[in-house]
């Protein structure tokens, strides 16, 4: 079993009651870089996430190569030069939802946790909207990350093309987890 999956299952406590665990195999994460030179946008529709409503914990893992760009060259620069996907193929997030009430239909809560990109981990807090529609959960929100926080090196000649702060949006629709 792969290390990421083991980590996610360990984080959620694989021996906990399954009815409190939910999975999203096709979560969506997009990022945006806005500069006066060019705008860069990429989307990943195959992000994995687990939600444990008892422990109020969320775990996310994604393949960096699964981000889709409008231009092939952007994809190549992102994977080969900036993120170095051969060395760091995945990004992950492990966090706790503060004051989460699983019974509420809609709530906006802060999620505190550790975001790992390019092999660098940072503590982050993310404002998230959590919906419970007849026991089916969804979580969405957006936040910003600084490129320099994750040791991503942009060549000086391209520095004006890449924003220092990247906007990230996420949307996960969960189903009951059965393993």
């Amino acid at each position, binding site marked *: 079993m792969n290390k*990421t999956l083991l980590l996610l299952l360990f984080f959620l406590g694989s021996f906990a009651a399954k009815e409190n665990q939910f999975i999203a*195999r*096709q979560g969506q994460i997009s990022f945006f870089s806005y500069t006066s030179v060019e705008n860069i946008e990429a989307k990943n529709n195959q992000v994995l996430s687990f939600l444990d409503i008892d422990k109020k914990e969320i775990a996310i893992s994604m393949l960096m*190569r*699964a981000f889709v760009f409008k231009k*092939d060259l952007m994809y190549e620069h992102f994977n080969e030069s900036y993120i170095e996907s051969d060395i760091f193929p995945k990004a992950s997030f492990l966090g706790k939802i503060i004051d989460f009430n699983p019974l509420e239909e809609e709530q906006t809560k802060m999620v505190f946790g550790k975001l790992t990109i390019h092999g660098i981990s940072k503590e982050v807090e993310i404002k998230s909207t959590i919906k419970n529609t007849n026991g089916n959960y969804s979580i969405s929100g957006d936040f910003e990350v600084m490129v320099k926080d994750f040791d991503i090196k942009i060549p000086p000649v391209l520095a004006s093309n890449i924003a220092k702060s990247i906007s990230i949006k996420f949307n996960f629709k969960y189903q009951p987890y059965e393993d």
Partner: protein
Amino acid sequence: MCVFYFARPLFVNSPKNIENSASEVAIHSDELVFNFISDEEKYNKLYAGKIIEVVGFVKEISYLNNTNTVILYSKNGTSGVICDILPNQKEKIESLKTHQKIKVKGICKGFLKDVILLNCYIDLQPNE
């Protein structure tokens, strides 16, 4: 630098070139998932970024996030193969039924709980 870019294969993110490109690997979904579960690092090097052809049985068809997705069964628990299907395959995907045997060609991106394939073409096969 220019030579470098022209020499690079340009199909990495470009659906139109995948349709007419030969696959580098042909494999059953059971074996593909088993390989990644047994040694993810090894099989990432073998499959990730390559055009692969996967034969398997349809477990689920999804239109989540305005995408067309087919998930193939594997014998390895709840893990399977998530195939993100190109928009021009809409007619084929609408004709699919669960448990139907199909062949899918796409770019392997790696493994999470499932193997992820993007820019996929569907080749319908008769049920066995």
